[in-house]
């Protein structure tokens, strides 16, 4: 057996800074090259980018929609309330005591007492009612305790809600409980399903993005087979050959993500005005929220990763095949 010697030029493995410099040069080259490829193939690049953007826009906008609707069910919204109508004999002082007591319940965020006098004043402000009220003589209105519940501690089923109201009815001062929050409960339940649907749609369209990027990169490889062969002949490693394609996929994903955020934001701009008008009509302080920073970064990170993975799959498939053929 012949003595084993290093056939490959021994590289100074201890020289880390040199290795790092080489690494940096390789990255720069690949970034430079892949961006140029995009720039000089505008048609195929744009088609791919638009396909990615459209595929990503659907789950992103659905996600934004669900998030907005969820914000309706949050604690800080003044809309959902439970009103306790107290018996006529109950005094203002007793009403205040009851409000304190109810507030100590875990499901309750805050309580306010609306005295019968206040209620009367409010009613008088409503045009036409003032005269009607005069004919009644005595104030017919009861004292009211208005409860803002903690939606998060209330559970999502109707049974949970009924449980809570039953408990409220056991107070001897309470004559009737009126709930304004059933629709919120239902909405929460629906949104839980909607979230699942968004997840499924997102998974399907993520696969689409993967395929679109993979196919674009595959075509790019096809066009550059000669180049790959030649660079291999003069000593390029698989890693070297792979690198510009990986960056190519990364850019497609990243820029496609940007584009989809642009699309969704523009769509939201169209919606903001009418939605805000609508919510004002209903006396809600609901505002249509845009895409926040976290979501923006999430979309970009996901789309960039999808691009990278798509490219990775395409290149590896090619390298694996070409190694078997071994031209």
């Amino acid at each position, binding site marked *: 057996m012949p003595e084993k*010697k290093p*056939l490959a*030029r021994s590289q100074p493995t201890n020289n880390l800074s040199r290795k790092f410099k*080489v*690494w940096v*040069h390789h990255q720069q080259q690949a970034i430079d090259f892949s961006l140029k490829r995009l720039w000089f193939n505008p048609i195929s690049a744009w088609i791919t980018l638009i396909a990615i953007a459209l595929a990503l826009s659907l789950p992103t906008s659905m996600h934004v929609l669900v998030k907005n609707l969820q914000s309706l069910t949050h604690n800080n919204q003044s809309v959902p309330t439970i009103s306790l109508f107290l018996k006529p004999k109950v005094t203002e002082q007793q009403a205040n005591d009851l409000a304190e007591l109810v507030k100590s319940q875990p499901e309750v965020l805050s309580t306010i007492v609306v005295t019968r006098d206040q209620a009367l004043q409010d009613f008088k402000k409503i045009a036409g009612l003032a005269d009607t009220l005069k004919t009644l003589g005595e104030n017919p209105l009861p004292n009211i305790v208005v409860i803002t519940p903690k939606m998060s501690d209330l559970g999502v089923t109707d049974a949970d809600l009924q449980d809570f109201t039953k408990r409220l009815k056991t107070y001897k001062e309470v004559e009737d409980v009126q709930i304004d929050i059933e629709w919120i409960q239902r909405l929460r339940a629906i949104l839980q399903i909607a979230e699942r649907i968004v997840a499924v749609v997102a998974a399907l369209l993520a696969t689409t993005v993967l395929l679109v990027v993979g196919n674009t990169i595959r075509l790019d490889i096809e066009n550059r087979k*000669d180049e790959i*062969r030649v660079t291999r*002949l*003069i000593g390029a490693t698989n890693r070297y050959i792979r690198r510009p394609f990986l960056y190519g996929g990364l850019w497609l994903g990243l820029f496609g993500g940007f584009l989809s955020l642009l699309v969704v934001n523009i769509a939201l701009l169209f919606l903001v005005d009418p939605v805000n008008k609508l919510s004002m009509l209903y006396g809600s302080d609901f505002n249509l929220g845009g895409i926040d920073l976290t979501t923006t970064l999430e979309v970009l990170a996901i789309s960039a990763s999808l691009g990278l993975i798509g490219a990775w799959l395409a290149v590896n498939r090619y390298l694996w095949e070409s190694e078997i053929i071994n031209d």
Partner: protein
Amino acid sequence: MTTKTIIEFRQVHKRYPTGQLALYNVNLTIRAGEMLFITGNSGAGKSTLLKLIALLENPSKGDVLIDGTPLSYLQARQIPNYRRRIGFIFQDPHLLYDRNVFDNVAMPLLISGMPPTDINRRVNAALDKVGLGKKTKSYPLMLSAGERQRVGIARAVVNRPTMILADEPTGNLDPELAQDIMHTFAQFNDIGVTVLIASHDHGLVERMQKRIIVLQRVEL
């Protein structure tokens, strides 16, 4: 002579998948720093012999040893690094037609991750050496066959290989230019580079006064 052996062929046979036998029982020893010519008729197996050294083909039988180690011992991931030791000049230069002369020649340096300023210097020096200093911005299709061949030569030597394998490097050149290029190879040889040249051109080969190996076509 004490110079060590760099390339050794031991009973090398090469049969292509088509059934064509290209090399039959080749035994050959080449010393480090040697310059040597391989001649023989068309189809005698000159290109095949060079390709076996650069691992562009594998022998069907026998071993090619480099520095005493059979190439078959090399693992796939070691091959790129080994190829960077070699400057290979292809019979057909295999240039990239969407890149200009400079970028074509710069490729081996880019692959080894050299900083751009060094690349500039090296590439320009290599192109000057083959007389193409003024054509750096041209694209291969704008060049004559001889010029393309010289781009291929510049690309092969730019990375300062320890071994130059040249397959008909002067095939498309006029006698004067051919002589110049041979001279360039001889200069590399003077600084210790092992040079193997496959060539038809008997006159030129004989004038260089180096060892000559004649391959005979395998007739079956």
